[in-house]
Structures are given as structure tokens and as C-alpha cells.
């Protein structure tokens, strides 16, 4: 037995489908589904089911939905078609010797059937009969025309009755006129009178024995979603970090070792010519350590030169002219910028014969700041540094242009700014097409001679540098408004699962 699979759970009997197809084969201009149902003596809904199942397998048939007026038996009409009209049943229930009227009235059809049979003159009533009124047949036999008409209608042969007859039956509430939806069925482009079973899936067995060649397969529902793969995910901020790393590497920048969160004030501030009274060195802005509280082992000659340039000047500078204290420089802190590492690297560079370098780093920095939706006590700083002979402001802007182009940002402009360890200092702005305004995207500058010369770098070497945060571009890239959803344990893992790959330039 072959089973015709349907889209839904119901299945149409193959016999019905094939019978339907044979009917369709015989007619060129199509056939009505109700007519087919009548001729096959099946309920119309069975044929509708067969039509739908054929539609699901492709272009076997074409079926056009039509609506038409149609006579249908009421419940009472169907009862009559089955058991006969009330008057006929009254006639049938009366024996030759007659029946007391009271007995007849006990029957369900008695009352209505009595008056109708009386007017048809099929029976008579003997009111004066001894023992009460009694009913007798007046004819030998009757013809139950009502039932016959109803049976004709039930079989769909409405055309054999006159309108007047149908209206009379309607008046007796045995018949009602209803609108019926039917299909006009014609042959499809791939019409065939035979149907085969549809397989749901290709199996190993079918591949082995080659049976797939003969089989038809149930179509897939391409509207549904697939099953999510069982996989791990990288964190979006780290995905962006990977891209920034890649950009620096493409530009020939060497990665600095920034795996030292704890730094001395000396390397974080003093070596960068940031005076000891600078607000950034306040308890309010920086995390100081209680244990280990102080750093030791500074390069002594260098430390003396740093002290001198702060307190007295030198290297062409007037200095800040204040009482520089080693105690301040020794204080350990959580580094406030990765520039502390840049300072260590440039100092190291200055201790050997100078060769040009390009450095970068992306790592955590810490600020004892008031927290809000976009600020945390720790964030990632991206930093780039180039040291070479005679680098200019034009070079810095040129490098920044190349760097930001790789991020998909081409419209840049620069604003004069202040930073204790760079001169000139420039804030980098890019034009945001969405916001229709210039937004700050980073900071940059040329390191001051007061920072570089005490290290021992040649006088004609300049060092250009820039920095930006990793979190900000990531939040923009992934449309995140609250930084806590991105960084830290309150991360929304669903967001991590769902975040797309990171292509910064698209």
C-alpha cells in the first residue's frame, strides 16, 4: 500500500487520489470536485483532501477554488431521506384493523404526519368508534414523493427537480440553499494517474542500494529555522582586539609586553614628565597599592635626570620648578595607561644604538573613577608608537589616517589639545555619518623632549604616538549601550553567542 504524505498530519487514501486522477484524465476542460464526490459517492471533504495532497506534490493537477450555490438537506430533511416523510411513517404505522388516535399521537412523527396524511387522504378518522377515536387506512398503498425528492437532492441531482418543488421543501424546512466552495480540477503540467510514496529523508540504505533514484522526496519547509550548532564563542571585545592587533601587525608594528598591571608612579607618571602635583596622580583618579606599596630598583642615572628635568629643567626646558620627591615616584599603582610600558620600551631602546621602531599594545588600564554606563574602573587601551629620526606632525597625521582607514574611518580632523607628555597634542575626530557630527575617536601627539632626552634617545629622534579605547569602538560596532553588558561578569551571554564576526572596515 502506498501512502500519500501530506503537509499536515492527515493522509488521503491512495484509492481516492487515483480515482480522482482517473476522472480528471477523462476530461480536458476540468471537473468540479463536488461532482466528483457525487459520482464517486464520497463526502466532498474527502475529495478536497485528495486535491490538497496532490497540490503538495507539485504540478500534477491544477485546482482552482470556486464557490457555487447548492441545495442541502436540513437535519429534518436528512431524517426524512432516511426514514421517510412523517405522513408516510404515519401511514406505515397503521394496521388494517386501525389504530386508536391516542396511540398514534404518542409517536414522534404522529402529530405532523397525521394532518399531512389526512390532507393526502391516505387515512380517515372514525371519531365515533367504540373505545375512542380510531384511525384507518383509506388506500392500499402510497408513494412517498417527499422522501424521493429529498433522496434525489441528497445524491446531487438537484437539476431533476423543479424550482417550485425545491422552494416547497425549503418552506417545510427540509432543504436549505448554501454556498459551497469547490475546486475546479484540471490536469497539471506533470499530470499522471499514478502516485508514488514520498520519502522524508535520504537514508544510507537508499544510497547503498540505489533506490533513491526511483524515490520521490517530500519537499522541505525552507521557511523554518535550522538547528543551532553546538559550539563555543569568542567574546566580542576580544574579537575586536584581534582585529586591532591584526591591523597593527599589517602596518609593521611590534607588540609590546604589557603584562604588568602594577606599575610604579615613576614609570607611569614621572618618566612621562607628568608633574607630581598633577590631578591624575590624585587618590581620586588612581588606584594606589598598600601591598606591595613601593617600587624599588630604578635605573639610578636615569632617575636623576628625570628628577632634574622636573625640578630644575634641562634639555632645553625650564622644567616645572618644584620639589620632586622620590617617595612619590616609588608609590605603586595600577597603571593608568599603557604609555607606562611605552616609556619602559623607549628607555630600553635608548640604551642601545638607535634603530627606528614601531610599537603597539592593547591591554588593560585602571582608573579610580566614578562608574557609569560607559565608564568602568578598568578598560583596554590601544596604543601605537613610532620612533624615528625627524618625524613630523604631518607624519603623525599620515599614520593616523592609514590606521583609521583600516577601521573604515576615512574622514579625520585634528583638534589642538593638552597632554603633559606630548607636544603638540591632538585629539582625533572622525565624522560619524549616523550622528551627522564629528566625534572624538582618539588622542595623539609627539612625545616631549623632557620625556625622551633624559632616557638618552638622540636629540633628532622624535616619537609619535596615539591611543584610543577598545571598548568604545566595540560598543559602537555591536550596538551595546551599557558597558556592563559587554565587560565583566554581568555580560549578556546571549549577546556573546549571537555576535557576528568582526570586520572593522565594513
Amino acid at each position, binding site marked *: 500500500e502506498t501512502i500519500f504524505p501530506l503537509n499536515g498530519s492527515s493522509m488521503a487514501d491512495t484509492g481516492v487520489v487515483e480515482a480522482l486522477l482517473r476522472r480528471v484524465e477523462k476530461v480536458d476542460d476540468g471537473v468540479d470536485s463536488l461532482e466528483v464526490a457525487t459520482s464517486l459517492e464520497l463526502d466532498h471533504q474527502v475529495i478536497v483532501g485528495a486535491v490538497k495532497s496532490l497540490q503538495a506534490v507539485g504540478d500534477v493537477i491544477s485546482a482552482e477554488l470556486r464557490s457555487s450555490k447548492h441545495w442541502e438537506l436540513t437535519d429534518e430533511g436528512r431524517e426524512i431521506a432516511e426514514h421517510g416523510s412523517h405522513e408516510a411513517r404515519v401511514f406505515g404505522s397503521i394496521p388494517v384493523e386501525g389504530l386508536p388516535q391516542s396511540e398514534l399521537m404518542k409517536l414522534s412523527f404522529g402529530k405532523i404526519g397525521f394532518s399531512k396524511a389526512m390532507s393526502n387522504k391516505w387515512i380517515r378518522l372514525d371519531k365515533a368508534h367504540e373505545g375512542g377515536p380510531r384511525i384507518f387506512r383509506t388506500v392500499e398503498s402510497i408513494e412517498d414523493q417527499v422522501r424521493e425528492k429529498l433522496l434525489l437532492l441528497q445524491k446531487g441531482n438537484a437539476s431533476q427537480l423543479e424550482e417550485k418543488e425545491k422552494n416547497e421543501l425549503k418552506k417545510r424546512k427540509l432543504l436549505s440553499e448554501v454556498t459551497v466552495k469547490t475546486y475546479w480540477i484540471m490536469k497539471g503540467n506533470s499530470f499522471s494517474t499514478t502516485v508514488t510514496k514520498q520519502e522524508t529523508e535520504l537514508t544510507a540504505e537508499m544510497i547503498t542500494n540505489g533506490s533513491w533514484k526511483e524515490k520521490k522526496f517530500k519537499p522541505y519547509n525552507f521557511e523554518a529555522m535550522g538547528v543551532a550548532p553546538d*559550539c*563555543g564563542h569568542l*567574546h566580542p*571585545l576580544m574579537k575586536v582586539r584581534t582585529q586591532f*592587533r591584526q591591523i*597593527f*601587525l599589517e602596518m609593521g608594528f*611590534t*607588540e*609590546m*609586553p604589557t*603584562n*604588568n*598591571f*602594577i606599575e*610604579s608612579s615613576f614609570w607611569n607618571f614621572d618618566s612621562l614628565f607628568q608633574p607630581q602635583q598633577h590631578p591624575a596622580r590624585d587618590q581620586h583618579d588612581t*588606584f*594606589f*597599592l*598598600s601591598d*606591595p*606599596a613601593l*617600587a*624599588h630598583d*630604578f635605573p639610578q642615572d636615569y632617575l636623576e635626570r628625570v628628577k632634574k628635568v622636573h625640578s630644575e*629643567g634641562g634639555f*632645553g626646558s625650564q622644567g*616645572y620648578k*618644584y620639589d620632586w620627591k622620590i617617595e612619590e615616584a616609588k608609590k*605603586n599603582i*595600577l597603571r593608568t595607561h599603557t604609555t607606562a610600558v611605552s616609556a619602559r620600551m623607549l628607555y630600553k631602546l635608548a640604551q642601545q644604538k638607535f634603530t*627606528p621602531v*614601531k610599537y603597539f599594545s592593547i591591554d*588593560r588600564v585602571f582608573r*579610580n573613577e566614578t562608574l557609569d554606563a560607559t565608564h568602568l*574602573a*578598568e578598560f583596554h587601551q590601544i596604543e601605537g608608537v*613610532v620612533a624615528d629620526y625627524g*618625524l613630523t*606632525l*604631518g*607624519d603623525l*597625521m599620515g*599614520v593616523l589616517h*592609514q590606521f583609521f582607514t583600516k577601521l573604515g574611518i576615512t574622514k579625520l*580632523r*585634528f*583638534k*589642538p*589639545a*593638552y597632554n603633559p607628555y606630548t607636544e*603638540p597634542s591632538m585629539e582625533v575626530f572622525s565624522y560619524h555619518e549616523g550622528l551627522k557630527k564629528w566625534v572624538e575617536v582618539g588622542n595623539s601627539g609627539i612625545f*616631549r*623632549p*623632557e620625556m625622551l632626552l633624559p632616557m638618552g634617545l638622540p636629540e633628532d629622534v622624535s616619537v609619535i604616538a596615539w591611543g584610543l579605547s577598545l571598548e568604545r569602538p566595540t560598543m559602537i560596532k555591536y550596538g551595546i549601550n551599557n558597558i556592563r553588558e559587554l*565587560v565583566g*561578569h554581568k*555580560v549578556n551571554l546571549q549577546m*556573546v*553567542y549571537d555576535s557576528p564576526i568582526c570586520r572593522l572596515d565594513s
Partner: protein
Amino acid sequence: MPTVGVKRDLLFKALGRTYTDEEFDELCFEFGLELDEITSEKEIISREQGDSKASGASDIILYKIDVPANRYDLLCLEGLVRGLQVFKNKLEAPRYRRVSPVNGEPQKLIITKETAAVRPFAVAAVLRNITFTQERYDSFIELQEKLHQNICRKRSLVAIGTHDLDTISGPFTYTAKAPGDICFRPLNQTKEYTATQLMSLYKTDSHLRHYLHIIEDKPVYPVIYDSNGIVLSMPPIINGDHSKITLKTKNVFIECTATDVTKAKIVLDMMVTMFSEYCSQPFTVEEAEVVYPDGKTCVYPTLAVSVQHCFVLCPPDSESTEKIAQLLTRMCLRSRATGVGDEIEVEIPPTRSDVIHACDIMEDAAVAYGFNNITRTTPRTYTVAHQFPLNKLTELLRQDLAAAGFTEALNFALCSQEDIADKLGKKISETKAAHISNPKTAEFQVARTTLLPGLLKTIAANRKMPLPLKLFEISDVVLQDETKDVGARNSRRFCAVYYNKSPGFEVIHGLLDRTMQLLDVKSARGEGYHIQAADDPTFFPGRCAEIFVQGKSVGRLGVLHPDVINRFELTMPCSALEMDVEPFL
């Protein structure tokens, strides 16, 4: 970055033209300022205290302008206008002159040796025949406040006192006395107080209470008297009411007391250069003498003009030396080409204390030229890039751990002591943690010594997610290490957790095996890796193993102790792995 609020219409009047907001914003950008906000007094009060308080407040438009932190000469309307007018070539930068009094001796401020214990320096000057209006007066007061908040480091380094000279008579004495011995009527009070009483009076003053700590626990407090014993001020807290400035004041005595004399000189120069504009002889300042305890006498204000000869090393777009000199002159740095090579001679006025090196001069040339007019070039620096080996390994491992079905988390490097000790069933003293001395909340007490608490907190915050949760992190922890100059070092760790209805030790163990496979370490005692039972209070007894690589311990894995699970507000079994990454370099 300090923000200066100026009335827009007053500013435009002084600039001699009006600007649209956009035009003014553009001018600021070019000059290195930032038009931060356009508002009004009414709007500010309404925002800070509610609409009801704001009714009746002025709705005159205010520009809030961000000024670079080292440009004290731009902290008031007078300075901003002067700077911008010179920049736009509409005004020649003034030359400030120190003058002797027309008749008689200069005002004297005598410093006694007692001040050495609390606030040893003082400088002074006189603004003669000044004309105040309400606006000028407001700006005069506001500039003192801005200087106090910035260069004066909230009055700790320098405090400014300004007095109506006609109400007092010199010579003035700057001394220091025990708080009980100082008694005067302070500004805007109706009766006299001793310094001791004042300190307790101001404990609740929203403004002054921030400065009390500067002298509070000193044995003596600084105080300045006139020759009749009238108190001018008790720096850095409050002035006397007697000598207060009014709109009618014609002659102003300015004193600055300090712990940093360089800054005191700068602050005094700022006050007098900004407001000498309103003297009958504009831009002249009457000198005052300061006599130090050792008898040495100094004359103030300094108003030093330093003349620098510098060579234009890399002019923007190779502009001529003459052009550079013109550019600098627009930045209030009068300059001329000397004709000796590329040398220029630059006059640095007392208003530009930020210029301390030739590079500061060259920056101004670039600003005047316009940063955005400079041609962008590409340096020819040839270099070959290297990755930091530890980061390279980390990057490679992360990819493959995600491929192994684990999701990457990213947690804070700072946390509470509880997170790394108590909650894991350990003592803080055993952790080798670095401690922070000034955390604002418990979240920042220590640098983490383990990645595990962060991952457990990540699970706790994501309990609604379908199980199992498989997380990992590769990041740095911080450990005390005496061999390092700062006494601590970072250590790169790999941590992973598996959280489900069953502990899944085999899953975490499988991840270890996979990790070792990725690191090309075979499973073998001796040369390879193996695990062996260990005791650790973080883990369920009998469910913890130590990981050995070439005989050295690199970490642990196991099923977490139910107490640990509870302390992190979790409800399901959990297995975890944490190990060092650096041994695999």
C-alpha cells in the same frame, strides 16, 4: 579639563561680532577649545534642583567652554577674548608692565619665620585705579575660583586673597599663630570668631569644608594682618570681611600664599594680567615688596617676559621663518625672524606659563597654521613586526578553545578579597594578592589571583541561559613577586568551567586533554603531562587533581565544593580547570 562659563552676548560684544553656535564651535575647535555646552543659569538650576527652583533665574545664554588644563590665561572672559582676538588678528597682544607707585613706597608684605611650619611662601601686587562693573566683578571672583580649583590644586598649593586696599594700611605681616590666638570677622559674617571656632563653623559649609584639611591639624594657622592688626585673610580658608572687595573698590591688594612658590608667581601673574585691563593705565600693575624671614626682599608680580631664540626645526609644510614668526605672534607669542639661519626670537609673555620648551612654541605655530592644513605624510620607517610570544600563544589557544565548544568570558582584573579567598574556602594571606589602598568600593580591593571567581560570577549572572554552560577565559592574574621592581607580576592563566545538572568532570578533563593536545604535550608521566589526586578546599573532597607537566605543577581541575557553589549563588554541580599558560611558551 577646566570648563569656563561665559555669557554669550557679553562674549560676542567683546569679540566685536556675533557668531552662530556652529561658527563659534568651529573657532573653538581651531584654537584648541571645546564649546562643551550651550545653556543658561535657569537650565542649570532646573537640571540640578528641579523646575520649581529655576523659576525667576536668568535665562541669558551661557557658553560652557572647555579649556586645556595648562592654559590658565583662558580661564576667564577677559583672557578668552584676548586670546581669540589676537588669534584672529584683530588685536595686538598687550605687553604687561610692572610699575612703581606714583607717589610713595610700594606696599610691603613681611613674612615671619612662623609660616615655615605651615605655608612658607607669599607674593603680592596692587591693581591701581581699577573700575569694576557687576560683570567684571563676577569675572574677577570667578577667575580666583577657577585658579583655586586648577593650578592651585584646591588651594593646597596656592590660595588667593584680594582686598580693598583703601580699607587697610600696610605694611602687611604674613605670620602663623595658634588657632586660638587668631580672632576676626570673616567674610560675610556679622561677628568675630577665633580660628578654632571658624574651623568648626565651616565643617558644614558646602564650599569651604573642602579646604579645612589643608591646615586643620597644623599647630599654627597662617594669617595676614595690616599695620593696625586688622586681619586680611586666614589662608587658605577665608578672607576678613573688613577688606572685602565691592563694586566701588578702586585699588586692589592681591596676595597669594603658597607651598609652591613657582605656582604662586604664576597665579599672581594670571590675576593681574587678566584684570589690569580695567585699570586707568591698562596692563600696568603696581609692584609690591615681599620681605622674607631671612631679610631678602623680592618684588612682585614677576611679569617675566622670557625671550627665547629657537630654530624652526620642522615647520609645518616648510613655511618660511618669517611666516612662522607671524603665526606665533597670533598666539600671543610676539616673534620675529632674526635673519640668522632659521632662528626666530620669541617673547613669552607672563600669561603663557605653559611655554617651557621650544616644542611648546612650535606647537603654537602649528595651531596657528591650522593642524588640518598640514599635509599628511607617510614616514618611511621600515620595521618588521613581531608579536609578543605570550599574546601570540593566547590568541591561538583562544580560537581552538572556542572550537572545543567553550565560550569566552571577560572578567575584571580587580575584585574583592572575598572573591579570591573566603568564597573559595581559602585565606587571603595564602593568595599572594596585591592590595589596593584606596578602593571606593569592595569590588576593587585586590587584583585577582585566580580567574575562577570571575567565571563563576558570569554563570551566576546568566542562570537563565540553557544548560550546560561551558565558559573559559585566558587572561592575567597578579601575584606578589619580590624579584620584580614593583614587587608583583602578572601571570597568564587559562580557566574553564562546566556547569550542568551533573558535575561533568569528564568534560573538563577532556578539555584538559584537548588543550594538551593543542600544546603538543603527550599524556605521560615524566616528559608529558599527568594528573594526580590533590587536596584543595575549593574542590569537593576526592574530586580534585593537580596537573603536572614535565613533573611541575601547572594547575588544578576538579568538581567544585558545594560550599563554593553556594557562595557564588549557584545551584548546580560545576567542574573547573585553572592552569598557567606561561610554561608552554
